[in-house]
């Protein structure tokens, strides 16, 4: 078997399992919503089928047993309970484990432990379904005893109307709609009308595209789910409307079955007036068949109704139809980004050379190329952007499991799932978020009785929110738990020698102390609500993404962790400035304005300047970095926005905007905090990229040091 097929199978099955988990959790909340159980069943069914096709017997068998129980839920024989959801989640996890044990050469390496887990899950599942069944059997026996002279009830016949419009590219998936219609014949009596309205003439047709649609009436004593199962594999590629008809819908007053056209008009799908105008406009098609003497007029009418109905439902469906997608491995995307990065760098060189040469034609080509590369860059970057929703939904399961383990009632709310972030950033924030959410659930949210005593709802809430903030994304993890008492942290910090007992710092800064390495260890758990365990690791991870994390808390009312992250890590817009003979890049997203300044306007002692009628601190970059500055009384002040407010950066000259391809600095420079990376300039020289948060933190420490010394 081709390795690639197996890889695709594993990848797709993983996705199915992810969606299965989501749907299971949704099912628990909305047990009456049929869509959820259908989706869970479909996932199990698909995995079963594909696993069997690739010869993964063990996966297929487990999925089959799992699917059987799900089918009982689907048909209403089995009630949805917490136990059932728990077991189903375990079943889903087991399928994932089996997939993980699957090797690309097609063999599954299962050990006894894995096999035992599978068996015990199946056993438990069948026990649940078994008990339910027995109870039901008892009821049946009981009712049979009461009315023992009655015959067992005959399966009642029902009629369904099925509108089936496969997507036009369905042939590419190998599907043949005729086979599905044939399957319907196994269920009962079928009347099929093909909708030919969209089929073009021969010279215009793409013969490998499907234009046909169908309107089908099916009568028989089958289960609704059996009908759904016929379409199970084309559901996502088709518009399918299944409608159960009442007997009055299809039997007229004389007890004769109605024509399809009448049914459609009667059930309000078509307006009689519309029908008339339609008959006029589409006379040609009808006439042709009628001329051939093949169908009587009413039958043509019926067919025309069907066509109109299809048109209508298609308009409705257009909004829901997803655009077609293409699966590309992230490696190839990374390669693309790398290439674009190289292109940007080369363009910078070309720009430099053409401006040096000063030849007009060369300049205009270089500028045009720059515009194109700008667009290319934006396009390529957008390919890597993914909505954060998929990361959020992974936490639903975690919070659910935590609340079971901890005996708490916790609800997870998510806001802003559509917010997009670079894939690399998304991958890297998963662990820090796990840490923070775990903390919130474990130590933030109180036990139900404690909450009730405090006058809160018994169910605690953890809210995950994502939103854009300039060129950054803010992710907020908020809980409505007990909050953190700043006084307790202060005390602890003084004990640890992190803070002078006399020192007055704001509550916000106090919370920031929680991120100090080893600040809060196990013994601090009780009096500090346990916060801070390993938070230094969280901060480190976030900072490695050039992001920052802050804490806000209100004792008694809850705590928020606020993560600020850059949208992307590969290419950013930067502002190139010169300091002495060096060029430094300031991320443009943080820059608020630039202003020219004369040396004598600066308050060099207190290092403050006035900006928009207030005094803000500034940093003399040349002095700070110990670089000899240019001899000129005119300087430039770049005003940036930081998490601590405005800050001025005094530089020699502002060179202009620069598309900055971020290159990492390597391990040798990992101890320095002021620069997040480097970029290659047009002339081949290197410019360091200023890390705003790092700079602010370093300045704080140095200022403290200076103050202490002075």
């Amino acid at each position, binding site marked *: 078997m081709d390795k690639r097929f197996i890889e695709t199978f594993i990848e797709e099955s993983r996705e199915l399992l992810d969606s299965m988990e989501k749907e299971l959790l949704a099912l628990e909340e909305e047990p009456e919503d049929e869509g959820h159980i259908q989706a869970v069943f479909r996932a199990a069914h698909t995995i079963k089928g594909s696993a069997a096709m690739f010869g993964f017997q063990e996966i297929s068998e487990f999925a089959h047993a799992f699917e059987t129980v799900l089918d009982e839920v689907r048909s209403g024989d089995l009630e949805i309970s917490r136990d059932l959801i728990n077991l189903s989640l375990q079943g889903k996890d087991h399928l994932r484990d089996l997939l993980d044990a699957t090797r690309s050469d097609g063999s599954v390496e299962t050990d006894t432990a894995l096999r035992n887990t599978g068996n015990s899950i199946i056993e438990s599942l069948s026990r649940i379904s078994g008990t339910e069944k027995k109870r039901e059997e008892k009821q049946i026996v009981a009712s049979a005893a009461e009315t023992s002279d009655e015959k067992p009830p005959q399966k009642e016949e029902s009629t369904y109307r099925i509108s089936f419009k496969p997507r036009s590219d369905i042939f590419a998936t190998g599907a043949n709609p*005729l086979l599905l*219609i044939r399957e319907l*014949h196994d269920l009962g009596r079928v009347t099929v009308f093909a909708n030919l309205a969209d089929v073009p003439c*021969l010279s215009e*047709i793409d*013969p*490998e595209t499907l234009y046909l649609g169908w309107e089908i009436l099916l009568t028989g004593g089958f289960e609704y789910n059996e009908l759904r199962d016929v379409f199970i594999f084309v559901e996502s590629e088709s518009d399918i409307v299944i409608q159960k008809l009442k007997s009055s819908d299809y039997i007229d007053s004389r007890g004769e079955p109605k024509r399809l056209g009448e049914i459609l008009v009667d059930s309000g799908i078509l307006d009689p007036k519309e029908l008339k105008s339609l008959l006029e406009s589409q006379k040609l098609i009808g006439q042709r068949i009628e001329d051939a003497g093949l169908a009587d007029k009413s039958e043509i009418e019926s067919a025309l109704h069907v066509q109109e109905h299809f048109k209508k439902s298609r308009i409705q469906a257009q909004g829901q139809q997803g655009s077609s997608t293409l699966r590309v491995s992230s490696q190839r995307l990374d390669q693309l980004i790398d290439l674009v990065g190289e292109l940007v760098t080369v363009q910078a060189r070309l720009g430099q050379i053409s401006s040096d040469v000063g030849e007009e034609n060369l300049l205009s080509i270089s500028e045009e190329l720059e515009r194109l590369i700008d667009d290319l860059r934006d396009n390529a970057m957008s390919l890597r952007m993914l909505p954060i929703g998929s990361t959020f939904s992974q936490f639903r399961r975690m919070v659910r499991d935590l609340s079971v383990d901890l005996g708490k009632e916790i609800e997870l709310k998510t806001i802003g799932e559509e917010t997009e972030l670079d894939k690399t950033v998304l991958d890297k924030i998963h662990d820090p978020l796990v840490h923070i959410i775990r903390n919130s659930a474990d130590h933030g949210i109180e036990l139900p009785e404690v909450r009730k005593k405090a006058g809160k709802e018994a169910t605690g809430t953890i809210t995950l929110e994502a939103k854009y903030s300039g060129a950054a994304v803010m992710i907020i993890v908020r809980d409505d738990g007990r909050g953190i008492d700043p006084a307790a942290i202060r005390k602890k910090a003084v004990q640890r020698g992190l803070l002078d007992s006399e020192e007055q710092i704001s509550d916000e800064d106090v919370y920031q102390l929680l991120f100090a390495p080893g600040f809060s260890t196990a013994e601090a758990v009780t009096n500090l609500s346990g916060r801070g365990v390993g938070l230094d690791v969280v901060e480190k991870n976030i900072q490695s993404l050039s992001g920052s994390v802050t804490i806000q808390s209100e004792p008694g009312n809850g705590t928020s962790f606020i993560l600020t992250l850059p949208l992307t890590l590969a290419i950013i817009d930067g502002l190139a400035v010169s300091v002495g003979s060096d060029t430094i890049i300031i991320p443009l997203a943080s820059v608020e304005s630039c202003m020219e300044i004369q040396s004598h306007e600066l308050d060099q002692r207190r290092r403050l300047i006035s900006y928009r009628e207030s005094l803000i601190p500034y940093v003399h970059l040349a002095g700070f970095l110990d670089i000899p500055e240019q001899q000129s009384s005119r300087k430039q002040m770049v005003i940036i926005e930081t998490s601590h407010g405005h800050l001025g950066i005094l530089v020699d000259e502002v060179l202009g905007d620069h598309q900055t391809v971020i290159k990492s600095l390597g391990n040798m420079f990992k101890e320095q905090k002021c620069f997040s990376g480097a970029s290659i300039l047009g002339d081949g020289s290197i410019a360091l990229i200023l890390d705003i948060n790092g700079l602010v933190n370093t300045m704080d420490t140095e200022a403290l040091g200076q103050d202490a010394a002075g």
Partner: protein
Amino acid sequence: MLTVPIGSKCVIDTVKGLKSSLLEALDNSSEGVLLDVSHIEEIDTAGIQLFVALFNEVEKRKIPLKFKGPMKEKVLEQFQLSGVRYGEQING
């Protein structure tokens, strides 16, 4: 009248080729085309759809279209299954 034979397979794999040969035949014969459908062994949704498109084309160009049959029973059955009521017409 030009006779155009349709091979044994009128399915997704062959519809592209069939389309070109049918169009060519229509272009070269204004007095009409005789389609030999007696050899079709296999037809699927794409094949049936091609027939519908052919009907639309001759309708537009006003070219007489006749069939040489009969079509095999299993092919006719596919037409019936599809709900496209041309099978009977083709079979005369």
